[in-house]
């Protein structure tokens, strides 16, 4: 599961819990009021008088309404944000067999492919839906052809995976701190 799905799942669980408890609390108040009891959990007489004494153009009402708009936008953002994929589809073989590669393992594999290049001290990779980014640390400041060598290694690795959708590759070289 990706970080985005985790956030969505946690927010959904909290929201469901809040809706469940909130609804039950109001039902308890309705039953208590029907039995002629004083408010048990929600001080609704104070809330009612507050709503009666404040008009729509009061600043505090506007702040609450603005909060509702922000919350609504956050929910929509969570609902529509796709984030990074958990896995990347590979070209499928026979009918009924779907192949995929986990994104994290592809990142590790690309980093390893880049790190195998001569003159590269270490590398890290990040894969999104369309692009594979590789950050490689070189030993020397400017070895000719090193970028092409890293790119070739990374492309070779991507080709061997047989991804359904071809990824663009971006290689960034940084000189290793040699202090």
């Amino acid at each position, binding site marked *: *599961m990706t970080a985005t*799905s985790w956030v*969505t*799942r946690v*927010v*959904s*669980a909290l*929201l*469901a*819990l809040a*809706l*469940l408890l909130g*609804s*039950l609390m*109001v*039902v308890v108040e*309705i039953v208590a009021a029907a039995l002629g009891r004083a408010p048990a959990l929600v001080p609704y007489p104070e809330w*009612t008088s507050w*709503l*009666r*004494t404040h*008009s*729509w*153009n009061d600043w505090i*009402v506007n702040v609450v*309404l*603005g*909060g*509702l*708009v*922000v*919350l*609504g936008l*956050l*929910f*929509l953002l*969570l*609902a*529509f944000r796709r984030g990074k994929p958990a*896995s990347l589809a*590979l070209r499928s*073989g*026979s009918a*009924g*067999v*779907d*192949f*995929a*590669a*986990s994104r994290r*393992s592809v990142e*590790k*594999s690309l980093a*390893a492919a880049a790190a195998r290049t001569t*003159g*590269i*001290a270490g590398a890290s990779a990040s894969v999104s839906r369309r692009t594979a980014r590789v950050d490689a640390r070189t*030993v020397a400041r400017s070895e000719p052809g090193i970028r092409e060598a890293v790119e070739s290694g990374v492309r070779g690795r991507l080709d061997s*995976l*047989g991804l359904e959708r071809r990824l663009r590759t971006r290689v960034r070289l940084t000189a290793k701190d040699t202090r």
Partner: protein
Amino acid sequence: MSRRANVINRVVLTVLGLLLLAAGGLGLALSVGAFGAWRATYPVLPREVSTFPDGRPWFWWAVAGGLLLIAVLALLWLLTQFKADRTTRLDRTTNARDGYTTLHASALTDAVENEALGITGVTSASANVHEHRGQHVFLRVELADSADIGEVRTRLENEVVAHLREGVGDPRFPVTIELRPGASRTPQRSVT
């Protein structure tokens, strides 16, 4: 983890987001006088609204009924978060009149895992039976960095999947295979 939960979360969050956006947006429009300047100075809860339930005893019971419905839906939504797609039994019933045939998923997944582990380059394998739009086997295969991915794929398809389908008696039984290339640690090149 359940894919169904992801879909439900997106739908419910969209509905709630739109409701909050509409409520907040309309309230703000009201406060700036978009529906008439006089409305902006009107109380948020006018007297005619707050006195509406007086003399209508059914009103609060109707509200309580609606809230109980929301509480039940919220409980179902909450439970969805903890449900997994995995299942422990595989239903192979062809005709319910003749009886039911179920297969322990672990018997099948153990066999699949063992066979996958026999392929050169495979360092670890785990299989589960998932229930999402029908049953299917999900096989996760970790590969050594040096593994020949093409060769592993071919053997998985021609041997592991073929035997699995033979075992369940369905030549089209759906299988999803997730490869994890380079999941086993590769020593990093050190340059001095």
